[in-house]
């Protein structure tokens, strides 16, 4: 009888919706907080924190966060992942930033029912079904590579292009998608694979044909894209650098160059104004890149799913949060559009944005 009473009490506890104040849980933020691209991690973490605060303010919940530094390095991400799993309070992960990191940790998180919502990992096969708990609020390279190729050929009238493929999970996958589309379009594309540790691109630029119209680069460090753009000018070659989203950073600023981004410039969007202002006030930043706002959406997705799980009486239950994320429907995110996920975790109706660098180094959205 006593055991039945206890069981009943437990059942009631599970089934009873929690008070908002009891809705707790920790969102792990896996980002490059130190290392060469720490500005990405700091912006992603800052926006994620703003989103968590917004969801808490709206719902009265007490969801918190914990940062895990991955340095955009797969090995470092793999070292941090067991710590995230071991933290029983963790209900989901914002991040990791890089595709190579997701490849390293996606399996472990999937096996532990921990939802992983990356704001910037775009490699196409991450959503091929291998990582059932992986989601992204941004489009994938299956859209970026072919999209950039079509834009170059159809809008910019490219007749011949060169590709500098940085040998990383991100760079190689993207170059492959781009080259396949160029082949379909019947445009000559010559690929030059380079080591991630390569520091001098003069020899590679010398190899690029004088008749090439564009050089598509798949770096994750925009300083390299800038170096290639300047080296092309020095060697009097007409090709213009077209960078992927990895080059969408302020250091890549040669006028006339192009870059694609997985998110729009939200600076002018009314729906993003409050989040951007809160981020700037919190961090003291004076400008933002396209890396931060998707992290806001990623954290919002997890936090709102956690609130729904709480309402169902499943406070901090990873599997329930994961199930709730799959049902995500946000009418308008700070990226300007609606958000729903496909069965494999991709965003429905995603698209890339093309920007051109102006004489003053600013970017103008052109497609």
């Amino acid at each position: 009888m006593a055991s039945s009473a206890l069981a009943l009490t437990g059942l009631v506890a599970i089934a009873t919706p929690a008070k908002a104040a009891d809705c707790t849980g920790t969102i792990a933020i896996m980002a490059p907080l130190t290392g060469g691209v720490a500005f990405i991690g700091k912006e992603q973490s800052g926006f994620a924190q703003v989103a968590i605060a917004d969801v808490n303010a709206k719902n009265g919940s007490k969801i918190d966060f914990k940062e895990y530094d991955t340095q955009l390095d797969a090995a470092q991400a793999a070292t941090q992942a067991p710590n995230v799993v071991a933290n029983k309070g963790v209900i989901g992960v914002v991040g990791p930033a890089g595709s190579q990191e997701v490849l390293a940790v996606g399996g472990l998180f999937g096996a532990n029912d921990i939802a992983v919502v990356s704001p910037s990992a775009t490699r196409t096969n991450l959503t091929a079904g291998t990582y059932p708990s992986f989601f992204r609020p941004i489009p994938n390279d299956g859209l970026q590579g072919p999209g950039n190729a079509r834009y170059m050929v159809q809008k910019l009238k490219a007749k011949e292009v060169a590709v500098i493929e940085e040998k990383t999970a991100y760079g190689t996958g993207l170059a492959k998608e781009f080259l396949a589309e160029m082949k379909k379009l019947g445009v000559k594309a010559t690929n030059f694979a380079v080591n991630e540790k390569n520091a001098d691109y003069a020899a590679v630029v010398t190899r690029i044909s004088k008749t090439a119209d564009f050089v598509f680069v798949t770096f994750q460090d925009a300083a390299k894209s800038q170096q290639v753009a300047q080296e092309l000018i020095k060697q009097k070659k007409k090709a213009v650098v077209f960078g992927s989203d990895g080059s969408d950073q302020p250091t890549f600023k040669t006028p006339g160059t192009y870059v694609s981004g997985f998110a729009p410039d939200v600076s002018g969007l009314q729906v993003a104004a409050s989040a951007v202002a809160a981020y700037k006030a919190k961090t003291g930043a004076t400008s933002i890149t396209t890396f931060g706002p998707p992290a806001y959406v990623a954290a919002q997705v997890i936090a709102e799913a956690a609130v729904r799980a709480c309402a169902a009486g499943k406070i901090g239950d990873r599997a329930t949060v994961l199930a709730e994320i799959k049902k995500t429907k946000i009418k308008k995110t700070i990226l300007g559009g609606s958000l729903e996920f496909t069965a494999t975790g991709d965003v429905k109706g995603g698209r890339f944005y093309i920007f051109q660098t102006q004489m003053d180094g600013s970017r103008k959205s052109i497609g």
Partner: protein
Amino acid sequence: MDYLGQQLINGLTLGGVYALIALGYTLVYGVLQILNFAHGDVYMIGAFLGFFAMTWLGGPLAPTVPIALMLLVMFLIAMMGTGLLGIVIERFAYRPLRNSTRIAPLISALGISILLQNGALLIFSPSIRTYDTSSYIPSTLGFSIGEITIDSVRLGVLVLSAVLMILLTKWVNGTQVGRAMRAIAYDKDAAVMMGIDVDRVIRWTFFVGAALAGAAGVMNGLLMRGVSSGMGLIPGLKGFTAAVIGGIGSVPGAMLGGLLLGVIESLAQGYLSTNFADTITFILLITFMLFRPNGILGRPMMVKV
């Protein structure tokens, strides 16, 4: 032919930077027979000092002094700063271990390397800095010979590398400290008996070697490469490779090794594969270690028995 010429120019510029790093390895090895594996990180500190000197003078977009003066100050501050850092490293990391086992200074060097990297990360923040050279030296400035183009920055790096190497050669051969350095490298005990102040000469050796690495760091920044706390590892290893190829302990050998390595790397990227240049570099290192451990200009070491 133009293509080959352009790749040779690319390689010589790269080689000039490697040679300056290699000289630091070779000077220290010549005098103390230790491998200063913190040398790549001294090069990194030099790149940062040059960057901060530029920022102090108004930055790339609004320099407060003429560009030539700004560049001069950048090099002077980087070279003086790293030179003094070299003295500090010698005093605290190597001198206490001078009479210990051969492995001890090697471990100490690795410790200093990690300390410098993490110290830079903490103090300078993890962001990648760029010298933004094109803002004050237009990329179009330079000249062409046929289809070969040599921009002003690359030319400047080539000329300055050559000038620094000539000055070093004159210093080693023509000054009292340089002669004392060679004497210590030849026979330290005999040099002590001849009244040479060994500590003073070693201090000079570390100062000069580190100052050259500082200059190489600024050159790296001017060539449009990113400046960050982790930037010293690969160039440091390549500088070491250049020193081994040339014959570690030999000043002309380090110069030759550096230039040769830069040219080989550039030609490998130009004719073989853009992806495997580093692999080829380190295969070269292994080949020299196996078949010609004394390098091109190095001499077999005489061991007292």
